[in-house]
């Protein structure tokens, strides 16, 4: 801030780009909002899907979850919400874990957990759908 002189050709944006704690500006904020908007209709759809399988036996559940429309809705929900929670937990960690090493470990753990959960869910939905 102090070295900002009117003589400089560099814009204020150019000066701060790739600085900051995350090195990626508002991308994180924007993706959090993007997935939150997507999650509204997807959550309603998933609640309807879960209501439709309540009390049914395994064969009926597999048939419902494996149908294309339901499977695609579930996939969209899982991808959007897992990405959303990955970003959200990153913010929580950055807010509360101040030790650099602990923060690094926690952020890595967050990424591992989110990817594992997301991949397992996607795999299960595809398996149900393709009937292998």
């Amino acid at each position, binding site marked *: 801030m102090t070295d900002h002189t009117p003589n400089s050709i560099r814009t204020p944006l150019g000066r701060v780009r790739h600085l900051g704690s995350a090195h990626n500006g508002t991308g994180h904020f924007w993706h959090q909002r993007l997935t939150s908007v997507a999650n509204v209709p997807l959550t309603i759809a998933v609640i309807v899907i879960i*209501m439709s399988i*309540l009390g049914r036996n395994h064969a009926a559940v597999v048939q419902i979850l494996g149908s294309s429309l339901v499977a695609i809705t579930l996939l969209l929900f899982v991808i959007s919400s897992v990405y959303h929670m990955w970003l959200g937990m990153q913010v929580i960690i950055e807010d509360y874990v101040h030790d650099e090493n602990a923060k690094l470990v926690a952020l890595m753990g967050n990424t591992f957990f989110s990817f594992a959960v997301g991949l397992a869910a996607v*795999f299960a939905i595809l398996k149900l759908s393709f009937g292998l």
Partner: protein
Amino acid sequence: MMAEAKATRLKNRPLSPHLQIYKPMLTMMMSIVHRITGGALYLGTLLLVWWLVAAASGPNAYAAVQWFMETLIGRLILFGYTWALIHHALGGIRHLIWDLGYGFGPVEREWLTAANLVGSIVLTIVLWIVGYLIMGTSFR
């Protein structure tokens, strides 16, 4: 760069007042609850994955999930998960409204926040009543 940052951090600067200074307000409490429900849903995805993987694995694995969900603890976890999901979703919509610049007046912000809390409780109970009605009319 790093040394510079460290030196700044070590300076004995005045700190901004933290939580214990403020009188608890509804908007503040719901903001905290929004984060807590987010964290709970994070762990709750394990339930979702267990359910999906069990359904993909076969009747025995699926029966184990069904058995657990029918225990008292399973029911309580599911009920809590439902409420956390609804509360976080409604809270998210409230934050999106605020992101667009609406609802910041003293009346609106309180109304939005109260609606978030009351709405989440009412919707959760309604969903569970509907759920039990569906279960009551379907064959196992």
